[in-house]
């Protein structure tokens, strides 16, 4: 499969804790994106990181990219119950297409 691999598949943490999820891929990329999907909803774009960037921040989100290891991580700091969702990484595949991973299901317990 060309899909990215995310781990863990599921993660359960207490409110206030940090959540880290990882994404690995097999071929070279020029960018990688992370999306969030709340239950029963469509995906919402969170952050894009380019291959010449090692780290990017957006609010409580921190994304890293290691092109030598072909992996990326998404860190959510000080998690809230509202962060409960599935998180997907996505990377370009060819000129117009994108490949999505199978996702990490995050549950934040109040």
């Amino acid at each position, binding site marked *: 499969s060309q899909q990215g691999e995310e781990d863990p598949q599921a993660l359960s943490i207490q409110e206030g804790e940090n959540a880290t999820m990882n994404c690995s891929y097999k071929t070279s990329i020029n960018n990688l994106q992370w*999306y969030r999907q709340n239950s029963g909803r*469509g*995906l919402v774009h969170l952050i894009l990181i380019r291959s010449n960037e090692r780290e990017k921040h957006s609010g409580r989100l921190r994304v890293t990219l290691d092109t030598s290891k072909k992996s990326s991580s998404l860190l959510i700091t000080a998690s809230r119950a509202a962060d409960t969702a599935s998180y997907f990484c996505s990377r370009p595949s060819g000129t117009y297409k994108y490949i999505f991973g*199978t*996702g990490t299901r995050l549950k934040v317990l109040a």
Partner: protein
Amino acid sequence: NAGVTQTPKFRVLKTGQSMTLLCAQDMNHEYMYWYRQDPGMGLRLIHYSVGEGTTAKGEVPDGYNVSRLKKQNFLLGLESAAPSQTSVYFCASSYPGYQETQYFGPGTRLLVL
């Protein structure tokens, strides 16, 4: 702006029936996509379009057809539905080039009996 909208939200079909899913976007995006999402499989690309009047096959195109007669609309058709097409279908759109972000619709849940 409504963003990306999908019609219908939920549908039940019998095997062999046909239906059309409608996706509309009001962001003047050139690119539009149809995905299906199944448990444990992530999103898989069915068909996509890079402009009005153009369509192309994605990863899992069999059993589906698409049309992009107007820039703002992207239709997904099932000519003869099969139980294997039970899924949640998402439409997405994006600008070409620098802004690779995809904007997703709320999804259509389809059950084929």
